[in-house]
């Protein structure tokens, strides 16, 4: 930047363009030298003609030459982007400005617009802002606004070349921008700086990124210190023609081998024009299934791909969208699921399941009626004091039968609570032994109102000869809809000699089954993220004849279906977030094993992992997932676990913030051109002065016009 007589030349390098003024002079001199020599007969007439004119003609030529030189000079000065700064700074340009350039490098700026990625106009605008800096006087820094905003240098630098080189390498990440954190960082960088402080934000003003700031009531004045001026430089022409894949899942969520599963993926057309899209789903390395759909503007549709899984274990699914849209990174969605040979179900009871007549005996057979190996459910019997966290980890459902008297501190309760919190489903047949006590102890852990009912005593009619029966039910519910009239009648005829008294049922937890005396017999409560089903009866012969009837088998099978989570409990991992692999069954002391563990990133390179946690609960963590795709936990070449990572679906919606919303955030906004999406040619830094290049350019054109006019007039 060069300052002359109150005029600051932002692109001082272009002043060298003034040397171009030498061109007309050189052309003039070369023309003189390269004049043609012509032997001519009528030179006498030429002499007559030129006599008296030559001096005038020479003067004219000099005037034309001077006009040409002046025009070139003025145009060169215009390209040097002169700014009139004398008026603002009393003759000197603004000095000691501290500027932080916040660069939105979220996935959405990687979109294509007019054939180029949006990151390029963003970079060009940032470079322009750097050009406006006073070299050696102004200090600046770059803040990359991605999922984890960071600055280029620790403090501000007065060497814009460093920033320029960094901008040259600027690329769009696959992250979602944490705008608030970027502002916080910019504010911290400017803290303690003297002079004018400015924050320039270069962004595509994606509504999904910026709206949360507005929703939280954050504005420029709240996000930044009062002495910091903020200007938002918007790039992009608001073209939102993007189609994206998101929210994939498999149903059933825990399929077993040989079962037809349905792979679901959501396709969203964020654009304002209809789209014809082709979506394919590839399971492992098999031939992909393809579907073609027409999507209306702003329509989202779930596409389903039925597929039979033949092998147990982890399966990866890659959904691919074939569509010429703005953002390419969201045209793939990665998903994985586990397929089992059989579904693990845990039966917790303190009786002997091999003892005919016991509750465990009937439950075990009702859950796996065809023999242990042939049933889809793999029932694992554990006594109440043997239950561990690992034993419940992969359980699709937990069924609790007879339990001995348990104290409040029994590990079973905390483990069951943890299981429910993880989204598990459990059923408790509570009519036998100290069931009422244990149940009260367990429900007390959740608070008095958590379950919406009170646990009463166990009623025992065995001595009196009286009996209870189940006579009413919500037969349309998903648990009981498999019971036809005959099954309902059969169930109603079964004598139950013991039954738990469940009282004071609140309105929102209606009983699924009711005893003949009207009291609830089967309740379903959504506890934490899981599902808890309380049965006031038991299959044990001491409690009645229920276990002897086939209808109990049907009830148990239906119950397991009911308890199985309807969705995968796996966390949805996003780019920019950490990827955590639980290392089940590995102890911290087993250093050799830990050393063998690697995590392979989607690009095939091993990622830096950090292993944390205590014995048996070690977790291998990749600090930040940079790429969407599958992160594979490997041990000695074998893939132990695979986690899919996708971009944040909010990045797919490219709609920019409304002008009104934008105004709320900051009053100083440089809007892009509606056609090109490029930033208008206006000064970006405050205190830069009034632009003079238009004046210079116009003057240059006027001078050029005068030259042409005089030339044509004098030629006549």
């Amino acid at each position: 930047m060069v300052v002359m007589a109150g005029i600051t030349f932002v692109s001082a390098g272009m002043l060298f363009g003034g040397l171009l003024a030498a061109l007309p002079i050189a052309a003039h001199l070369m023309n003189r030298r390269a004049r043609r020599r012509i032997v001519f007969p009528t030179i006498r007439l030429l002499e007559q003609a030129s006599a008296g004119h030559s001096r005038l003609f020479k003067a004219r030529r000099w005037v034309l030459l001077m006009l040409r030189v002046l025009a070139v000079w003025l145009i060169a000065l215009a390209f040097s982007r002169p700014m009139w700064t004398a008026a603002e700074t009393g003759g000197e340009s603004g000095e000691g400005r501290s500027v932080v350039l916040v660069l939105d490098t979220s996935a959405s700026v990687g979109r294509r617009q007019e054939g180029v990625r949006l990151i390029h106009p963003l970079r060009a605008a940032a470079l322009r802002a750097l050009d406006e800096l006073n070299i050696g006087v102004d200090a600046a820094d770059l803040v990359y606004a991605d999922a984890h905003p960071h600055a280029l240098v620790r403090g501000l630098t007065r060497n814009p070349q460093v920033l320029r080189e960094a901008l040259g390498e600027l690329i769009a990440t696959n992250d979602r921008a944490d705008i608030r954190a970027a502002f916080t960082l910019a504010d911290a960088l400017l803290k303690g700086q003297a002079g004018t402080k400015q924050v320039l934000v270069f962004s595509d003003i994606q509504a999904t990124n910026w709206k949360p700031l507005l929703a939280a009531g954050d504005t420029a004045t709240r996000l930044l210190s009062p002495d910091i001026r903020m200007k938002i430089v918007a790039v992009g022409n608001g073209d939102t023609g993007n189609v994206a894949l998101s929210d994939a899942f498999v149903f059933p969520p825990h399929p077993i081998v040989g079962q037809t599963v349905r792979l679901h993926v959501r396709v969203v057309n964020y654009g304002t024009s209809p789209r014809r899209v082709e979506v394919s789903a590839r399971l492992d390395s098999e031939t992909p299934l393809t579907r073609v759909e027409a999507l209306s503007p702003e329509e989202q549709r779930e596409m389903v791909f039925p597929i039979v899984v033949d092998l147990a274990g982890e399966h990866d699914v890659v959904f691919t969208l074939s569509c010429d849209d703005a953002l390419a990174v969201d045209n793939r969605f990665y998903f994985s699921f586990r397929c089992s040979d059989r579904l693990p179900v845990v039966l917790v009871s303190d009786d002997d399941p091999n003892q005919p007549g016991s509750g465990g005996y009937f439950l075990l057979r009702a859950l796996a009626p065809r023999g242990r190996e042939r049933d889809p459910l793999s029932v694992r019997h554990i006594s109440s004091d043997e239950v561990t966290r690992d034993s419940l980890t992969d359980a699709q459902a937990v069924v609790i039968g007879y339990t001995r008297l348990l104290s409040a501190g029994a590990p079973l309760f905390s483990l069951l609570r943890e299981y429910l919190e993880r989204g598990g489903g459990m059923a408790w047949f509570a009519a036998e032994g100290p069931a009422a006590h244990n149940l009260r102890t367990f429900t007390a852990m959740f608070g008095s109102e958590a379950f919406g009912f009170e646990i009463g005593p166990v009623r025992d009619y065995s001595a009196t000869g009286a009996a209870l029966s189940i006579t009413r039910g919500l037969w349309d519910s998903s648990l009981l809809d498999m019971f036809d009239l005959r099954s309902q009648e059969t169930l109603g005829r079964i004598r139950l000699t013991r039954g738990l008294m469940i009282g004071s049922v609140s309105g929102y937890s209606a009983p699924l089954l009711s005893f003949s005396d009207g009291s609830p017999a089967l309740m379903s409560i959504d506890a934490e993220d899981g599902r808890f089903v309380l049965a006031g009866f038991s299959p044990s012969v001491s409690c009645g004849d229920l276990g002897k009837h086939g209808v109990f088998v049907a009830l148990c099978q239906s119950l397991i279906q009911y308890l199985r989570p309807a969705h995968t409990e796996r966390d949805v991992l996003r780019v920019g977030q950490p990827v955590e692999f639980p290392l089940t069954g590995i102890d911290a002391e087993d250093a050799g094993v830990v050393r063998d563990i690697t995590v392979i990133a989607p690009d095939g390179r091993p990622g830096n992992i950090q292993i944390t946690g205590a014995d048996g609960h070690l977790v291998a963590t990749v600090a930040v997932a940079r790429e969407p795709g599958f992160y594979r936990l490997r041990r000695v070449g074998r893939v132990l676990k695979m986690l899919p990572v996708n971009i944040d679906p909010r990045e797919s919606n490219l709609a920019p913030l409304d002008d009104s919303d934008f105004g709320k955030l900051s009053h100083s906004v440089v809007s892009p051109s509606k056609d090109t999406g490029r930033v208008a040619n206006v000064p970006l830094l405050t205190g830069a002065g009034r632009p003079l290049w238009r004046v210079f350019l116009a003057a240059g054109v006027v001078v050029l016009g005068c030259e042409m006019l005089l030339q044509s007039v004098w030629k006549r």
Partner: protein
Amino acid sequence: MDGESRYLRLEDLRRLRHLTFTSRRRVEGAYAGRHVSPHRGHSVEFADYRAYMPGDEVGDIDWKVYGRSDRLYVKLFEHHSDMTVNLLLDGSGSMAYAGIDPPRDATKRYSKFDHAARLSAAIALLAIKQQDRASLSVAREGLKQWRRPSGSMARMEGWFKELQALEPSGEARLDEVLHQLSQKAAKRGLLILLSDLLDEPEAILKGLSLFTHRGSEVIVFHVLHTDELKLPELDDAVFQDSETASRLTLNVGDVRSAYDRSMKRFLGMWSSACRARGMDYRLVRTSEDPIGVLSQYLGGRA
């Protein structure tokens, strides 16, 4: 004709076969011809009666008149003689001009001199065709080449072949040449001057008047290149005089209009001066076909 000359072409002869070239004035020739002579002769054209004088041929006495008037009168007839066409070519350096970008190969160059030579060859052919005689002179630093009048085609061919080798240069000194030529040429004949007339006009006109005063007819073909009539499209250029080598640097665009005016004055001056002295004047542009020019001129002359 073997090895056809650049100037003397058979095709020109074919195009000229319908044309005749006669002098507007009486001519004196060596032999009988088809042109009216100032002398009385024995043609069929009756001219006058004259009183018999001793020494007259008795056979010339008109006896019918003697019978009516009893006086002896001699019947006089027109004398027709051949015509001598004196062709004078300007061989000065200015006639060598062949444009601002002349071909380097001299045989492909076509200068004002070439144009004048071709026109003079056509006139010579026409004269020989009608049994007249032609002489050829070149003015280059004086009268350097004068050929005695001849009616021989072979000789003519030789002259024009020699002319091909001639490189126009130096000054013409037309006034001096015209004086010299007036001594050598027939008393009454036809003088055809083919020149760009860039010498002193007064001196040239004085020289030409020598011919008109003694009864010769003078025709001036003013040969100019198109570049001379309209300056070429150039910007700055250094113009060098083809005869004096003096230089002038100027921008053509600047002087174009003034030059046009000067040229117009120059041509007007020559045209009016010639006509005032009873000479024919015809401007010949190098862009014009010389045979066409001649046909046009002779058509207008008739």
